[in-house]
């Protein structure tokens, strides 16, 4: 009974999500994209990087990469804390 309600809810949720996904923009035609055009046009002269993705990952959005490293460090710390040595208690 409860399970059935949850499955129906998941289907409703999925249906609404599909409806939204269908109307973001036609696939492959995002229209006017000022931020990405800026990256594509300025990455070479600003950052001397042939690879635009690299210049975004390590420069324009470099702070996210620090955050990413912090998440990795956090996960390593958590795993080390969970499997630490030490007496029962």
């Amino acid at each position, binding site marked *: 009974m*409860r399970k059935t*309600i949850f499955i129906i*809810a998941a289907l*409703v*949720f999925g249906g609404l999500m599909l*409806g939204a996904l269908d109307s973001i923009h036609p696939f492959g035609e995002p229209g006017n994209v000022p931020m990405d055009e800026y990256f594509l046009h300025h990455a070479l002269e600003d950052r001397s990087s042939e690879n635009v993705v690299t210049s975004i990952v390590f420069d324009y959005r470099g702070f996210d990469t620090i955050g990413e490293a912090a998440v990795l460090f956090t996960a390593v710390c958590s795993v080390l804390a969970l499997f630490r040595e030490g007496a029962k208690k």
Partner: protein
Amino acid sequence: MWTKVVTGFGYWDVYSWLIFLAIASFFTLWLRNSGRQDYKEGTYQDEIYFSGNDVPEDGQDISVPADSAYWGFIKVFRPYYDVMLSVHNGLAQDYLGYFVLSIAIITALIVLL
């Protein structure tokens, strides 16, 4: 002026409450001090009266445990608590199910209204 909270419908002041508390504690202490004068510490007057029975050595035997608190309240609302305890049943997938259910309801409400 440092202690007034204006709510837009009236105001409320911390000082008046503190003065009230001071007066109340003064009266309490005064009443406590005007008790019987023939009380002496360390005599039979210190002993606990436990319905005429022997008072247990360990305080644990005469203290009320937490489970017994609000016994009547819980007894009256037993049907309500039965439903609530079946919601808090500890099954991780039910918790996920409630989450998915509420996402579906919120999304439907926001999109359709």
